[in-house]
C-alpha cells in the first residue's frame, strides 16, 4: 500500500463570486486545470486568486457559473463533501493534537479503519521526511517542519485536487527554495493535480506547469512559465512576471508575421503578434538589451550598481529610462558615458498600445 493519486481536472465555467452586494472578487472566469498538473494562480493582492482557490476547496460558493472536479459538478457541494484538500498559509495545524493525530485527522472521516489510518499517516510523514516526529506537538516543530506536516496531512487523503494557499510565505528565503522543490518533487512523483496560489512570480515560474495570471478579478493570461515570460499578452503581465522595459514605438510596416517598428529613429524587425500599423508598445527584458550594439538606441548611463553577480544599469534615452543588467562586472560602464543599446533577436515582444 502506498499513497497514490486520484488526480482529476478542475474546470471553471463562467464563474463569478460577489461578496455582499457589489464587491466582485472574481469576475466571470473560465479555467481548465488538467489532471496531474501543477497550476499556479499568480497575481497581486486583491486580484481574486485566493477566492478562486477557496471556491475550488468549497470554502466559498460561486455566485454564478459552475465548477467541475473530475466529471462531477461540485458547484453546490460544501468543502466537507469535496475530495479536495488544502494546505493553508498559516498551516492551520490543530494545536491540541500531536503531529500523528493531525495527519490522521482526515483519514478518520474517510472510512479507513484504525490500523490503516495509522499506516497511512506514518507513510505520509515518511513521505515528507518527518519519520519519528509523530508524537510531537505542532508547537514543538520548526516552521519548515510544521509546513511539511500540513502537506502530509493533505496528501494522505489522496485528494483529487491538492490546494496550496501561499504555502511558503511564512518561511525564510533559503527554506523557501528547498520546500518549494520538495513540493514540486512530490507532485511530480505522485502525479497530483495541484493548484497553488502565490504572489511571488519567481516561485510561480519555478514550480509551475502552467501559470494563471490574475488581475482585477479576471484572468490576464494563462500559459507555461516560458510563454508568460517570453510572450506576455499585455503590459500588466509583462510587468508583473519579471521586470520589463515598456517602450512606446510605432509599427511602420507589417509583412506576414513580421512587423517593422521605429523607436525614436531606430528601425527593428520582430514578430507582429497580430498587430497592425500604428502606435504600439515594446516590452524588453533587462537581459535582452545588448550593450554597444552596432545599431540601436543612443543612451547615456545614469546609474550603475554593482550587486555582486552582475551589474545593474539605468540608461537615459530620449523617450525615458531603460533598465538593464550585464554579466560583465569586471569592466563596468561609467556614469555619464554614452553608448548604443540594441535589441536581442528573441525576447522583445510587441504589445498593443493601451
Amino acid at each position, binding site marked *: 500500500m502506498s499513497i497514490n493519486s486520484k488526480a482529476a481536472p478542475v474546470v471553471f465555467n463562467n464563474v463569478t463570486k460577489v461578496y455582499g452586494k457589489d464587491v466582485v472578487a472574481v469576475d466571470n472566469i473560465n479555467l481548465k486545470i488538467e489532471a496531474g498538473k501543477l497550476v499556479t494562480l499568480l497575481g497581486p*493582492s486583491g486580484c481574486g486568486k485566493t477566492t478562486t482557490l477557496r471556491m475550488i476547496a468549497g470554502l466559498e460558493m460561486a455566485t454564478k457559473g459552475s465548477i467541475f472536479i473530475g466529471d462531477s459538478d461540485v458547484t453546490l457541494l460544501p468543502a466537507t463533501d469535496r475530495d479536495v484538500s*488544502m494546505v493553508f498559509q498559516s498551516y*492551520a495545524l490543530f*494545536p*491540541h493534537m500531536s503531529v500523528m493525530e493531525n495527519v490522521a485527522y*482526515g483519514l478518520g472521516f474517510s*472510512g479507513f479503519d484504525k490500523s490503516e489510518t495509522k499506516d497511512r499517516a506514518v507513510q505520509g510523514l515518511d513521505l515528507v521526511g518527518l519519520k519519528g516526529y509523530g508524537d510531537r506537538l505542532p*508547537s514543538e516543530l520548526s516552521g519548515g517542519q510544521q509546513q511539511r506536516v500540513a502537506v502530509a*496531512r493533505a496528501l494522505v487523503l489522496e485528494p483529487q485536487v491538492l490546494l496550496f494557499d501561499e504555502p511558503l510565505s*511564512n518561511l525564510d528565503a533559503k527554506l523557501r527554495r528547498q520546500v518549494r522543490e520538495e513540493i514540486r518533487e512530490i507532485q511530480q512523483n505522485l502525479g497530483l493535480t495541484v493548484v497553488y496560489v502565490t504572489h511571488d512570480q519567481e516561485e510561480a515560474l519555478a514550480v509551475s506547469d502552467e501559470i494563471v495570471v490574475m488581475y482585477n478579478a479576471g484572468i490576464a493570461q494563462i500559459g507555461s512559465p516560458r510563454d508568460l515570460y517570453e510572450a506576455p499578452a499585455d503590459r500588466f503581465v509583462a510587468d508583473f512576471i519579471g521586470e520589463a522595459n515598456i517602450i512606446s514605438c510605432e509599427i511602420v510596416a507589417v509583412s506576414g508575421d513580421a512587423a517593422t517598428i521605429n523607436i525614436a529613429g531606430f528601425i527593428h524587425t520582430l514578430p507582429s503578434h497580430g498587430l497592425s500599423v500604428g502606435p504600439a508598445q515594446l516590452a524588453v527584458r533587462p537581459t535582452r538589451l545588448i550593450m554597444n550594439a552596432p545599431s540601436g538606441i543612443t543612451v547615456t548611463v545614469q546609474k550603475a550598481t554593482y550587486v555582486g553577480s552582475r551589474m545593474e544599469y539605468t540608461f537615459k534615452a530620449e523617450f525615458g529610462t531603460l533598465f538593464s543588467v550585464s554579466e560583465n562586472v569586471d569592466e563596468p560602464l561609467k556614469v555619464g558615458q554614452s553608448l548604443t543599446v540594441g535589441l536581442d533577436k528573441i525576447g522583445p515582444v510587441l504589445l498593443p498600445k493601451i
Partner: protein
Amino acid sequence: MKPLASLEQPANPVLIFWIAIGLVGFFAVPWYGVEDFFKFEWLIDGYPFDADYAPAAFLLGQAEKLWLAPLILPLLAPFAVLLKRKSDPLYARVLIVAGAIGLGWIILQGFSIGIRGWNFGWLRVFLGDLNDRQYGMGYGGMLVTVAFLFLFTQGIAARGAINGDVFVVSSISGIVVIVTIFVFFPIAKMLTAAFITDVGGYSLSVFASKFFDDRLWGLGCLSGGRCGVAWNSLFLAVLVGLITTTLGLIFALVVTRSGFRYKRALRALTVLPIITPPFVIGLALILLFGLSGAVTTFFSDAFGIQPTRWLYGLPGVLIAQILAFTPIAFLVLIGVVEGVSPSMEEAAQTLRATKWQVFKTVSLPLMRPGLANAFLLGFIESMADFGNPLVLGGNFDVLSTEIFFAIVGAQYDQGKAAVLAMVLLCFTLGAFYAQRFWLGKKSYTTVSGKGDSGMHPHMPRALSIPVLALAMIWAAFTMVVYAMIFYGSVVELWGVNNSLTFKHYFTAFSFSFEESGIRWSGAAWDSFWTTLKIAGIAAPLTAIVGLITAYLLTRQTFAGKNAFEFGTMLSFAIPGTVIGVSYILAFNVPPIEITGTGIILVVSFIFRNMPVGVRAGIASMSQLDKSLDESSLTLGANSWQTFRRIILPLLRPAILAALVYSFVRAMTAISAVIFLVSAEYDMATSYIIGRVENNDYGLAIAYSTTLIFVMLAVVGAMQLVVGKTEIGRRMSQSRTNV
C-alpha cells in the same frame, strides 16, 4: 471515498434518530406534565392508561384529547422518505411540510385549549363547547415538538440552506426557538398583561392610569417631598454606572499598568463580591453603619454624635451597589485594558507623545467600548438589584422592589407589576441602544492575533498616585466589609449581645447520624441542596447554549445574523426582575405550565446568564484562526465534527469560565429568583432574604458566609482545572490568513 459513502447508505442516521424521538414522545412518554417526573412514581401509578400519565397515543386510544390525533400523520410521514437521497426534492419537501404542520398544530392546539376548555370565546361560538380541558405539556409533548422542529430543519438543510449543513441549520433554529419561547414570549405576555382590566378585557385607559401614576413619575423631591420610583431608579442606576465604571477602570489600571506589588491580592479581592449574594453587602453595611452598627456606636461613644438612620435610603443602597458591582466593571475593563495592543502605545511613544499624552490620546480612546460596556452593566445591575434596596432602601423606593410588592404584597396587582416592569425594561433597553449608538460602527479591535511582544507602559505619575490611593481605600473598605460579614455570623445578637457563638451555624446546618443515615436537621439544608442542584443543572446548559450561539455568530454566515445576534444579546439588557415577572405571567398557564417547579428556575438561569456564555465564547473563538476550521472541513470533517473535535477542545478555558460564572450567578442571583421560588423549590438567596425580613440577621449572615465559602471552593477547584488545561494550550495560532 467520501461522496461514495453517502450513496451506499442512504438511510440517514440523524433522520432516523429524530423520527424515533418523535415516536417515543408520542407513544411512550406521558404527554402532559407530571410532577416529580424523575422519581418515576408515575410508572407504577396507572401508566400508561391513567389520563394524567398517559402518552398521547394511549389518550387517543381511549378517545380522549382527540385534538392530538392530527399529529400522527406528520410523525409518520418522514418514513416515506427514509430511503430517499438528500438531493431528492421529495425528501426535503416531505420533511419541511411534516415538520411545519406538526409544529404549527402543536402551537395551535396548545394556545387554543387550556384549563377551562377553549381559550378564546370565538372558538366556542364556532366549534361549540369542548367539555374537555388540558394542562401544560410534559416531556412527551416536548419530545414531539423537538422532533418536529429538527425534522423541519433537516428538510431545510436538504434544500440547500447554509450549504446543506444540518448541524448549523438545526442549531440556529433550535436557538431561535428557545429564545423565542423563553425570552420574547414572556416579554410579550407581560406587555399584554399591562393592558388587562379587572374583568379580563383589554383597555388602554387601564394602562394609562397605572403608567401615569404619581408614585411612578412624581417630582416631589425637587420641592422637598418624595420622587417617583422611576426617577429614583434612574438616578441611582446612572450614579452606580458612573462610579463603578470609574472604580473598575482604576483597578484595571493598577493591575495592568503600575508597578504595584500586590496585584494578585488585589485581583483576588475583586473576585470576592462576585461570589457574594449582592444583598449580603447590604447586611454588612448595617452591621457597620446601622443604628447599632460598629462604626456608629464608636462615634457616638467617642464624640457623642447622635446615631441616625442616614444609611437607610439612597446613600446605603448606593454604597452597597458600588461595592457589589465594581468588580463586574473591573472584569469587563481588565480585558479591554489588557487588549489594547502595546505596540499601539509604543508606536505613540516613539512618535514623541509623553506618557500622559499616550494615555489620553491612544489608550483611553481604545478603551471606549469597554467603558461603555462597564457602564451598561453597572446600570442594568443596579436597575435589577433587588436585595440591597429591600435591605437598605428605607423610604427610598425603586422599581424592582415596587414590582416585587405589586406581585407578592397585599395588593397583588399583576397589571401594575407589568407596567412597572415595562418602565424598567424601557430604561435598560434605552441604555443598551444608547451604548450601541455611542460606539457606532467604529472597530476598536486591536488584538490582531499576531504576536505582540510589547509591554504596556506604566501610567503617568500624576495619574498613578491618586489611582493607587483610591484603589487602596476601596480595597481596605472591602476587607472591612468582609471581615464584618464573617464576624457578624458568629455574634449572638448584634448590638445587643456581642458574645461569640456558633449558634447560627448550628441552626442552619446541623445534622446528625442516625440508623437510617445522616439526618439533615438544619433549617437551611433544604434550600441549600436545591440551590446546588439547580445551579449544577443550569450551569452546563447555559454553557452549551452560550457556546453554540457564539460559534454560530463567529463562524457562520447566514441571513438574519444581525437580528439573531441582537435577539440573543437582548436578554442581557433585561433585568432579572422583569424576567421574573414575565415568567410568572407567561408560564403559569398551558401550554407551558412550569411555575412552582425547578424547571422554571433552571430556565430562568439559562436565559439570564446565556449572554455571558456567548461573550466568553465569542472572545475566545475570535482568538482561534479561522483556517483551523477550514482545514478541518477540507479534510472531510463536517461542521459538527469540526465543532466537537477542533473548536471545543481549544475552547476548554472558555467553557470552564462560562461554567463557573453561570454556576456562581445561579447561586447568588435573587432578582428573578424571588418571583419564581416555591415552597418545594426554595433557593438559598430567597431563604436568606426571608430571614432578613424577619430580622433574623444572625442566621442570614451565617448562611451567606457559608455560601461564600462554598463558592470560593468551587471557583478554586475550577481554576485548578483550568490552570491544568492551559498548560496544554499553546500559542501556535498567532499567524493569520490575510
